[in-house]
């Protein structure tokens, strides 16, 4: 017997063409202008133009290539421009197994990124070491850098990687503007030994 449907049950607000429309933030609209507060708009702008850094190490990297290709296009969500230099990127996507030899490299790349920065651990190996419980594999990149979203899978399907990026977008949208200056964030960085 088929299991009952659990997702996608609610009517989405669509217009006549069936396109899902996002709602406007609260603010004051006038003739040719719209005034609102920064924290409602900055998150919206940031989340739809993420510049990811694909730190692709192994098999998850190939699934990422499939995600960037035309069938599961990640560019639809604004992440079209991949940068390979951490100085210009917001989102560090660590995809694949990170060995202990590679750990300092991940950390260095993370340190070179400018705030605000987010980290997504794609795949079981980046999240927790995956199937490789051996002496040479770092059991999860959260041993060296703070991680925002974990995407499980070995390798995760492209839909799962997109879901991870959408969660990052939610985090970015809802992040308070001064989060990076707060005590709790500083404490998090201290716990990783990052100044």
């Amino acid at each position, binding site marked *: 017997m088929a299991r009952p449907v659990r997702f996608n049950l609610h009517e989405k607000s669509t217009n006549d063409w069936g396109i899902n429309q996002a709602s406007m933030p609260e603010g004051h609209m006038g003739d040719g202008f719209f005034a609102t507060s920064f924290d409602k708009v900055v998150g919206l702008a940031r989340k739809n133009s993420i510049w990811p850094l694909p730190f692709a190490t192994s098999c998850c990297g190939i699934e990422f290539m499939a995600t960037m290709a035309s069938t599961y296009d990640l560019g639809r969500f604004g992440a079209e421009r991949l940068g390979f230099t951490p100085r210009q990127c917001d989102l560090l996507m660590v995809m694949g197994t990170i060995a*202990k030899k590679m750990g300092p490299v991940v950390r260095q790349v993370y340190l070179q990124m400018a705030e605000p920065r987010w980290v997504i651990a794609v795949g079981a190996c980046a999240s927790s070491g995956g199937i490789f419980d*051996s*002496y040479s594999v770092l059991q999860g990149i959260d041993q060296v850098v703070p991680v925002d979203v974990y995407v499980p899978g070995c390798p995760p399907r492209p839909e799962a990687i997109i879901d991870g990026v959408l969660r990052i977008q939610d985090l970015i949208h809802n992040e308070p503007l001064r989060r990076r200056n707060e005590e709790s964030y500083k404490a998090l960085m201290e716990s990783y030994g990052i100044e």
Partner: protein
Amino acid sequence: MTLTSDIVREKLTEKFGDSLTEWAQPHGILTFCVPRDMNLKVLSFLYDDESLAFRFLTDLTAVHYPDRAGEELCVVYHLHNLVANRRLRMKLYAPVTQPDVYTATRIFSSANWMERETYDFYGVHFIGHPNLKRVLNVDEMDYFPLRKEFPLEDQTRIDKDDEMFGRG
């Protein structure tokens, strides 16, 4: 004239006599064992001889037999004659207290990194190797991980719950 295992064995025993031991043919590949210091002589004979012509080094690796006292590390060479399509396996044994073996890099350039990998995993010291450093593990590692006495998992982990793994 096709190169059969009998011809190979005949030629080798003709040249080297009784020093080659442990002749066997497991699953089709002729295997024999040479004394440690004769490995280069046998390899160059196999390379230079026109009828044998084993000029391709397929693989170089090692095995650790902790039970064989005095001969714990076994270095295995897989050779291939591409023209006559015949494979050969040569083994040599070295004690774990003094694992020195002459390097084959002068005959086969592919032995370079394969010997570094063998050194990295088992600690076999290849005399005359141009650059005997660790190739796959971190340079600071101070033990040879693939020897049987060392465990697979990282022993410094504190987050693994032994109860869940049946060890608690």
